[in-house]
């Protein structure tokens, strides 16, 4: 009983504090037109009650995490996610699931409106961006806050090539990947010795530098007005808007599959192991003959390739690009998708990307609170479930039984 009284006292104090702090906003409402002041006393009740309950719940969950959570690891306590993984791993569940998924994907564009197809394509593009960033953050352990720069590089690659030399979509696509890789190397070199926060700030700066260059070199890049009328990809001949939309959808699907394939292969390879060692302990890794410079540059370049590819797709999809689409916020949203979904885990990143793109789309009513929601979600996840919604499951090499 004493404990409950204690908690009630704490929560009441919290509520009082918050009432005082939010008094000017919640209670006082100034009407500038009539020069009057309206006093909304009822709000004190709402704010008080809400903060009382919320602060109690918050402390409750924090305590629970402190006492119970730290001893449990994801390996010991089979949560719902692990059970889903186990069921999906069985052949008889996995094969029909994949087949029906494949069928759904193929017929999807014909079942829904073109607008929906466009949205889904955007979501798929975001998945590829997330997976690309995952290579840098999840595999390499390098905090990258300027990923949108590579996105911009890919998009402008197509835009500029088309503008000056009329290069078509399919020629621009591999070039976009290459230019992404080049810029990945460019950012890799200066940050080789940096760790943690310093690395993050420099990559953030790099992202902004690229955007500002695009905006200010207007003689070359057309600056803030952007490049318009970029042609959509054609299929032997020019496609209609609807045809191109469906075409882009399939292209995105193929790219997502390609990305997942490459990432799986990377995980289970000498390079993948080297990256993991580097992530765990740089000094020990170096002592085992792993060239940190090469590994970090590889990570940045490999991660950037995907953004370059998707950038070309973006230009072909929206037919108009300008520097404003590649801001810091874009980099952050990709980061949110990766972290929320599960850093380092491919299904996690895919889920995160879908959540970040589709929730604002389908819950338009909450549009104004979008940033607030993502912020709160990020804070809550970081405290209570930092490994993300679908945590990474380490596959181990095992002897006497093959890989697990």
């Amino acid at each position: 009983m004493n404990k409950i009284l204690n908690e009630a006292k704490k929560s009441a104090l919290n509520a009082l504090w918050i009432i005082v702090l939010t008094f000017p906003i919640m209670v006082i409402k100034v009407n500038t037109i009539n020069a009057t002041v309206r006093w909304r006393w009822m709000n004190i009740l709402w704010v008080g009650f809400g903060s009382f309950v919320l602060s109690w719940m918050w402390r409750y969950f924090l305590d629970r995490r402190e006492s119970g959570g730290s001893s449990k690891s994801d390996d010991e306590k089979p949560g719902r996610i692990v059970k889903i993984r186990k069921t999906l791993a069985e052949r008889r569940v996995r094969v029909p699931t994949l087949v029906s998924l494949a069928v759904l994907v193929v017929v999807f564009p014909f079942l829904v409106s073109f607008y929906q197809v466009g949205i889904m394509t955007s979501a798929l593009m975001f998945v590829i961006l997330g997976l690309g960033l995952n290579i840098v953050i999840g595999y390499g352990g390098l905090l990258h806050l300027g990923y949108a720069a590579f996105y911009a590089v890919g998009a402008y690659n197509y835009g500029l090539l088309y503008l000056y030399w009329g290069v078509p979509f399919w020629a621009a696509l591999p070039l976009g990947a290459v230019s992404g890789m080049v810029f990945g190397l460019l950012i890799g070199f200066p940050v080789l010795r940096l760790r943690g926060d310093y690395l993050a700030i420099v990559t953030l700066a790099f992202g902004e530098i690229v955007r500002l260059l695009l905006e200010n070199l207007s003689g070359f890049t057309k600056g803030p007005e952007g490049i318009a009328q970029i042609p959509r990809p054609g299929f032997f001949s020019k496609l209609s808007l609807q045809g191109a939309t469906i075409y882009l959808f399939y292209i995105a699907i193929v790219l997502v599959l390609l990305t997942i394939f490459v990432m799986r292969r990377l995980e289970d390879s000498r390079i993948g192991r080297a990256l993991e060692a580097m992530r765990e302990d740089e000094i020990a890794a170096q002592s085992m003959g792993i060239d940190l410079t090469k590994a970090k540059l590889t990570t940045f370049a490999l991660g950037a390739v995907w953004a370059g590819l998707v950038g070309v797709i973006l230009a072909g999809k929206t037919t108009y690009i300008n520097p404003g689409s590649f801001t810091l916020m874009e980099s952050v949203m990709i980061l949110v998708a990766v972290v929320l979904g599960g850093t380092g885990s491919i299904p996690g990143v895919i889920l995160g990307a879908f959540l970040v793109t589709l929730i604002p789309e389908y819950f338009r009513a909450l549009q104004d609170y979008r940033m607030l929601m993502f912020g709160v979600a990020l804070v809550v996840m970081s405290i209570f479930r930092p490994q993300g919604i679908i945590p990474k499951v380490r596959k181990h090499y095992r002897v006497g039984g093959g890989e697990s």
Partner: protein
Amino acid sequence: MVFGGLRAVDHVNMHIDEGEIVALIGPNGAGKTTLFNCVTGVYTPTDGDIKVSADGGEVTRTNGMKPNRITELGLARTFQNIRLFSTMTALENVMIGRHPKLSAGIFGAIFRDSKTREEEEKVIEDSLVILKKLGLEKHANEAASSLPYGAQRLLEIARAMATEPQLLLLDEPAAGMNPQETRRLDDTITRIRDEEGITILLIEHDMSLVMSLSERIYVLDYGKLIAEGNPTEVKANPAVVKAYLGE
């Protein structure tokens, strides 16, 4: 090796010949691990030369080389505070040690040509063989951090051996071990030298191990070399006794 005003390693002359087991001893803070760090490339010596002679006889000056390059030259080390990759299994830790002897790159990772596939199969086999040599094969699938302390120390040695070194630098391999484990370590290190032909340089505080195992000893105190010779000579050296026990 000078750090600002501190001479951590001060005019130390050492040489290690092939097939020897040499010990580097001295009180805490004498500069032994700093010397290791200079030799393995973690620090760049502010003065002096470190030279490694390869099998072919060519001598390389390794000052300023990065640690991974020095490992490729044939020097591998263990750490005073265990630096295993804790999320990986024992087997995987040793597999990381194989890194410099493998060649697959991004192309091999993505396309898995036959050369890469063969290499990957061999890696697991070879790593298991190394684990067996140190008696750790039963821990192969366990997470490194869950191994008993003595096994963790042995695993660090196994991981270093995986790089196929000419010279193995062991930094306090017996730290925290009980007498039985220490005796076993004695046998293991001797075996490594005899069967694998690996030269050993070890830092150690356990005097019984040092006296039993090593053929030559260098003694460091406050960064300076105060004695060198075989175990009997060193044990009797008054400067050594003074350094360890005071006046």
